[in-house]
């Protein structure tokens, strides 16, 4: 996180936070620490026009031969995806106990599915950012996405069945602990399940 050690940094932090901009209606005491000589000069008020200009920025994640554009607030998810790329390098018997490698097609399909749901939830639910899951390879050639948040627990497993990729899941909301499990559509957003997954927010 950027430190607020200068007025410019402080001002930037406010610009990046629309909620604070909306709430702002006066004088920030913190600013006066840096401008004791002339605090009046910082009694500004953001206009509606400035607020409307704020657009979400994007970051890119490169996956095999594709580049995905992701809202920058999902930077932690992008970090986890980048960290998981080692999965593509796993060879036969990668755990010394007979594990089979994860195919590039499965990996790509799984990450595409993960991004699709994370971006949908962000756009559909008032900019809800879900926590990034752990992305782990399984010895049977499948991939796990594992979440454990204050709101919910969820495990999604992406595997190949026949010629198709499929995702199964298990989870519960911490509020009621009722188990929820089954299949998730990997090609289209399942709105019910996406709604359920909002509890995976940070």
């Amino acid at each position, binding site marked *: 996180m950027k430190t607020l050690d200068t007025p410019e940094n402080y001002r930037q932090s406010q610009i990046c936070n629309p909620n604070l901009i909306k709430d702002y209606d006066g004088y920030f005491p913190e600013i006066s620490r840096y401008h004791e000589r002339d605090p009046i000069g910082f009694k500004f008020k953001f206009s509606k026009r400035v607020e409307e200009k704020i657009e979400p920025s994007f970051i890119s994640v490169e996956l095999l031969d594709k580049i995905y554009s992701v809202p920058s607030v999902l930077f932690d998810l992008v970090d986890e995806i980048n960290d998981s790329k080692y999965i593509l390098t796993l060879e036969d*018997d990668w755990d010394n106990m007979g594990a089979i490698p994860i195919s590039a097609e499965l990996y790509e399909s799984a990450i595409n599915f993960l991004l699709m749901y994370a971006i949908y939830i962000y756009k559909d639910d008032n900019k809800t950012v879900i926590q990034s899951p*752990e992305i782990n390879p399984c010895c*049977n050639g499948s991939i796990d996405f594992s979440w454990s948040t204050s709101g919910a627990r969820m495990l999604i497993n992406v595997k190949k069945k026949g010629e198709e990729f499929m995702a199964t899941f298990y989870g519960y909301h911490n509020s009621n602990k009722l188990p929820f499990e089954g299949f998730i559509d990997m090609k289209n957003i399942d709105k019910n399940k996406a709604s359920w997954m909002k509890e995976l927010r940070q």
Partner: protein
Amino acid sequence: MDEGIEAVNEVSPWEIQPITNDDIVFRQVPVSQRETFREKKIPLESHFALRPGEDELSFNLDGIIDVPKNFKLIGITHSRKGAFLDCATFKIFKFPVVFLKTLGKFEKIIHTPKFDGAPSPLGRPNNKSHSSLYCGEFNDGTRAQLRDYCKYNDCECPIDINSIKQEIAELIERHTDTPYHNYWEFDD
């Protein structure tokens, strides 16, 4: 325990021991040595996934084996590629049988000692303590339950690997002339 013993043709000299609610079983999991900046709490759900062709998850029965012996057993076992496994790349977790029986898809847990002759081949020691947990296909819910149990309970069985390294080296030098490759008759 999933360690490359593919076929056991010899008749086991050991009686099958009943496993009760009071028993504890050990599960050994390989730990990735990959450097990563994102910390993950071991074990992962993936450590409880079945391999192709498997229908049971392997454990070792406490009482017949203990944690140091379990690590030594790992250290004298060959990987699929024929090299001895490095026991420093494994962790061992203990599970009460009474917990395993609460798993949603629990079917049974039974003592299934592995005997492959006396002596058994180099790199394929016998395992008198081997036990098998059956929980269907170990679906996502079962694997999540197993991981979460470790997360919220003190399951890891730590060991100072350096304290047993010398002993493992000596066992390897003895080739198949070890209790592990024979009838599991230990002096201690």
